[in-house]
């Protein structure tokens, strides 16, 4: 029996995987993967809640639309930043990109 709680548990698992990647990984591209996984977990929550709403509401799907567009922008800008960091430092290991550290 699939209920709203099933979707919420899947979303929580995805969030956990994303947080693990965010806190452990060193490669900047890998960290971007983790961010995308977390954004997808949030989108899944919105879609699940709006489906189980009675009477049906359109706003949940609209906010997922905005969220997908915003995540696409974030990926474009993030990858451009990674390219610049690679060009300047010839590494994308975030533990080595510590020039701003006092």
């Amino acid at each position, binding site marked *: 029996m699939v209920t709203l*709680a099933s979707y*919420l548990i899947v979303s929580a698992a995805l969030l956990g995987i994303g947080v693990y990647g965010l806190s452990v990984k060193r490669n900047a*591209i890998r960290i971007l993967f*983790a961010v995308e*996984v977390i954004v997808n977990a949030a989108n899944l929550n919105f879609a699940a809640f709006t489906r189980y709403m009675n009477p049906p509401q359109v706003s949940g799907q609209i906010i997922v639309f905005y969220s997908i567009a915003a995540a696409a922008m974030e990926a474009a800008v993030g990858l451009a930043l990674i390219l610049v960091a690679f060009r300047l430092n010839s590494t994308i290991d975030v533990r080595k990109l510590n020039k701003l550290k006092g």
Partner: protein
Amino acid sequence: MVSLVIPSDISFVVLTAVTIIGAIIALQAKELIYGAIALAISFIGIAGFFALLDAPYLAMLQIAIYVGAVVVLILFTIMLVRRERGEEMDKRTDAAEGSMGLWLAGLLALAISGVVALAGTSLPTQAPAASLPVSDLGPALTLQYPVPLIILALLLSAALLGALVLAKVER
């Protein structure tokens, strides 16, 4: 309306496995390229969830934008920043750091699952029979929420211009 032959319980289990295993492989694969492909598979799983939740428009957007655009962009970037052969790009994490991250992520997921379990009875278990038709989304987007749409368009062009300026090579 064609009814699906596969019951939704089986498709839910399959989609859960695809999404979660895809996400884990995306973060753990040795080669970044394989990780990106696993990420695309995980995104397709999420699109399947959207289809299961009677949101076909979101499923289409997910495949077109995430699988079609974001993952391809990531693949190109991986190829641009790839080192010479033999040099490892993703150093293995040390054990203490790894277990710390695992604890953090596990506790967070457990806490949220606990909240969901506590909320248990107050959460709706049955989705309303009538789902929203896709044709309701267009009017809502343009008539009900026009200002966010315009802001989104401006933001999109600003972000793309910014990305272009950042990635430009100074000669």
